[in-house]
């Protein structure tokens, strides 16, 4: 796993077909991720994800639309896409983040794993894009504060040589 990536997973008491539907159907995507979604689960398909100011999922403090391009779609198994590249640009590892969902059936349901990589590329891009400035103002400074406190605690608790 790349250094600038995060991996998360969750066990869902549902069949993989049901989970697949939730993560790929635009009408469902707008219930857990965005406020609107235009995307088709086909490799190479371009679409758009849209958040509204004060939207249901509370992810953005402004109206924001970002492009999405499906990389891989293997029904009930794998779904991956690149997003957060600038509109009109072809997404690659320098200008976008890659999100990879993996579904695996196990006793009790379906394990859904997600890996997002290329966070550094997006962080750089976002700093270069003025439309993100307002949106990030509050959120980032809050996170910086929390993490600064965390790192300071970790350091003060570390045994001194």
């Amino acid at each position, binding site marked *: 796993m790349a*250094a600038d990536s995060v991996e998360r997973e969750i066990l*869902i008491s549902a069949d993989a077909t049901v989970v697949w539907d939730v993560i790929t159907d635009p009408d*469902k995507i707008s219930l*857990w991720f965005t406020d609107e979604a235009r995307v088709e689960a086909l490799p190479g398909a371009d679409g758009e994800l849209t958040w509204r100011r004060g939207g249901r999922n509370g992810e953005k403090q402004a109206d924001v639309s970002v492009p999405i391009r499906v990389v891989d779609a293997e029904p009930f198994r794998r779904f991956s896409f690149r997003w957060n590249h600038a509109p009109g640009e072809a997404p690659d590892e320098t200008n976008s983040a890659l999100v990879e969902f993996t579904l695996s059936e196990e006793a009790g349901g379906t394990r859904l794993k*997600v890996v997002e990589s290329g966070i550094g590329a997006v962080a*750089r891009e976002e700093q270069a894009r003025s439309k993100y400035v307002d949106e990030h103002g509050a959120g980032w400074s809050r996170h910086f504060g929390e993490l600064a406190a965390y790192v300071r605690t970790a350091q003060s608790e570390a*045994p001194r040589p």
Partner: protein
Amino acid sequence: MSAAPAQEDLLWSAVAEPMRRRVLDVLLERGEATGAAVARELPVTRQAVAKHLAVLDRAGLVAGTRRGREVRYVVLPERLDDAAAAMARVAAQWDRRLARIKRLAEAAQADV
């Protein structure tokens, strides 16, 4: 698209290398350490650690202080936070999204 600030590129390329992350981990654990002390805890030579420390220093992630014949390094938390904050923010967002996916899928399953 305007060019990304050079300092930000340095930061992200500095933390993108796995062994440099381990150098940072050792420094965070110990509070401060010489390059030689870091090298004793990692499967690399002192020379390799010195190079990693130089990259981290240029990115503003560590600072070295000379004490007599040795240089002791500490992590500069403000800079590390820039990278860590982006990662933590993304991780927390995925936790919330996965929880919503679980709720939606389990509700849909009940209707099957």
